[in-house]
């Protein structure tokens, strides 16, 4: 009887919608429909453009500078993108970076202990903040936008108040002469010599984490669950996906990223200014969106935000290298973001059209 029950493809749409259907679509069109391919082409275009416009950019060490900027954004854009694929936002990610750096710095300095103690305590605290965000979101069912807006404001205030309380200033004390600083700097903020060009270590972390995230997202059960909880929480729960676990760990992943970047900031610059980080969360989200992650969740990649961050950093530095009026930077960024969102919209329509 099964032979009698083949579904006939003709039962669906009128023939005009032929090109967007899975079967008959040309490979090129299907490739472009992948959001990360779109942003890759965009990033490539921006790079070629600036390579032509800015001769000084063509040197290896100039590129290393651009990549450094990209990497510190990209390191955070990665977990932020995963969280977005999982259907949630984290507005506290920018100040959380500074919270972790402040914690490590003040704890080490005030107690005069090896800086690795501060690094570890700060990791635990960061993960706790992420767990709190996630727990609040899954328990209350409130939009993560609201919950993390709350944490954003709390952390912003706490960063300032606690720093003032502990150090008497609005910045932490220089810890560069303390035990363990050298080691920690080597881990979080050193440079690697590649053919005479000093490349910051964050660039390698960034690419390594991106590769890892891609593997997790596409090749593991957890990755499958990230797509599922972002695509439809109820459906995922109904088929047995541990939705709460997935969401909470995603928030913790973001706070892990914040810790990592926070440690870089601390060991690269020796001190931390308590008011920093505000506004960065939007840049991370922008990089993820430019990289093809849907604001509504359920779609995106880990490689897309790499190009998103690259595009962001490239435009940022490219304008400087080209010697243009930097007043225009924000306008450029806005155009890029809008373009990316439009592409995303088109992708989603194409994917769900019958």
């Amino acid at each position, binding site marked *: 009887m099964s032979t009698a029950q083949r579904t006939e493809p003709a039962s669906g749409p009128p023939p005009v919608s032929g090109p967007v259907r899975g079967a008959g679509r040309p490979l090129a069109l299907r490739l472009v429909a992948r959001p990360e391919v779109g942003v890759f082409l965009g990033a490539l275009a921006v790079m070629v453009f600036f390579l032509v416009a800015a001769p*000084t*950019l063509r040197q290896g*060490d*100039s590129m290393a*500078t651009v990549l*450094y*900027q990209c990497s*510190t*954004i990209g390191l955070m854009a990665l977990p932020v993108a995963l969280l977005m694929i999982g259907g949630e936002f984290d507005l506290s990610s*920018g100040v959380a970076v500074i919270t972790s750096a402040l914690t490590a710095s003040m704890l*080490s*300095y*005030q*107690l*005069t*202990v*090896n*800086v690795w*103690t501060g690094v*570890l305590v700060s990791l*635990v605290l960061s993960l706790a903040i992420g767990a709190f965000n996630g727990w609040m979101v899954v328990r209350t069912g409130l939009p993560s936008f609201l919950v993390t807006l709350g944490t954003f404001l709390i952390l*912003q205030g706490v960063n*300032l108040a606690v*720093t*003032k309380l502990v150090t008497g*200033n*609005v910045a932490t*004390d*220089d*810890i*560069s*002469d*303390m*035990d*363990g600083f050298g080691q920690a700097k080597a881990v979080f903020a050193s440079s690697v010599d590649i053919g005479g060009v000093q490349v910051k270590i*964050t660039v390698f972390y960034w690419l390594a984490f991106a590769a890892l995230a891609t593997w997790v997202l596409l090749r593991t059960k957890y990755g499958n669950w990230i797509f599922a909880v972002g695509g439809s929480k109820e459906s995922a729960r109904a088929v047995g996906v*541990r939705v709460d676990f997935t969401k909470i760990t995603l928030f913790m992943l973001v706070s892990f990223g914040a810790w990592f970047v926070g440690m870089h*900031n601390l060991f*690269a*610059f*020796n*001190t931390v*200014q308590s*008011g*920093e*980080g*505000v*506004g*960065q969360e939007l*840049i991370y989200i922008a990089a993820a969106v430019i990289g093809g992650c849907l604001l509504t969740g359920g779609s995106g990649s880990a490689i897309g935000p790499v190009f998103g961050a690259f595009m962001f*950093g490239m435009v*940022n*530095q490219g304008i*400087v*290298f*080209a*010697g243009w009026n*930097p*007043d225009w*930077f924000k306008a450029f960024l806005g155009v890029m973001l809008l373009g990316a969102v439009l592409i995303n919209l088109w992708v989603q329509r194409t994917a769900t059209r019958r």
Partner: protein
Amino acid sequence: MDRSSRSRSRRLAPVVAVAAAAALTLAGCSSDSGGKKAAEGGSGAPAGKAGTPRMTVALVTHQAPGDTFWDIVRKGAEAAAAKDNIKLVYSADPSAGTQANLVQNAVDQKVDGIALTLAKPGAMKDVVARANLAKIPVVGLNSGLSDWKKLGLLQFFGQDESVAGEALGKKLNEVGAKRIVCVIHEQGNVGLTQRCDGVRKTFSGKTETLYVNGTDRPSVQSTITAKLKQDSSLDHVVTLGAPFALTAVQSVADAGGKAKVATFDLNKDLTGAVKKGTIEFAVDQQPYLQGYLAVDSLWLYKNNGNYSGGGEQPVLTGPAFVDKSNVDRVAEFAAKGTR
């Protein structure tokens, strides 16, 4: 649901235990160098306290949260308040409208004096008039050098941002600078723009402007590096705040150039860098003095009818240059976060 979470916590337990143990182990080995133990020094001697009746003074500034400069202004104001038996009410907001509301708030509370900054004089006009109507003395500090008299303020302490900029421009001429880049760490900030414009006015060489994202240190560093690589003829980087000067030093090292760094404002790490020579000089408008004098002047006005500057002239707190020649003297106070 319950079951799975319980098994999860069971799985997590050893991880937590290991992490805690590791933290404790590390806590055991304390740092032999640096840290607070090494920095413990003598504390500033508190001055005597006035026996005059308690009064309330509101200090309203356009500070953005977490700014070192304003933190020092506030410390100066607090020191004067403690000495003069004044209850100091500090509030701040970078947006002019909100700052005006804060001033109005102080007027409503019928404080005994108001000290405010005039970053955007137009927005403060009405509230200052209302304070005058309520017979509350108002003094200005920091910004508003050209407007304080027009608005009916009693006296003014500070130095316009553009005056400071002009002073720095002249100093750059003296040290033989030819091409400089002025790094603005907050796009659209009036005070910062005035500083750069002041520099441009008196500096005889070529001045370029560079915007950086002040809330993101790595971005600041790479953007300045990029600028130095793009234009290798730049010989000076001018930053508008102490933390950015220190970041610019790293950028110069990264870019492999020979550019020097000059900056506005001070902090304790900066004095160290001046001592080492990595930063050429800093121009300071003595924020501590601005806060201190503004509050103290209100006390003098109320208790003795004094006008600083005779009520006609502003009291200038800067520009005070800090370079290798005088840094040792300044460093001592900068370490306490008061200079």
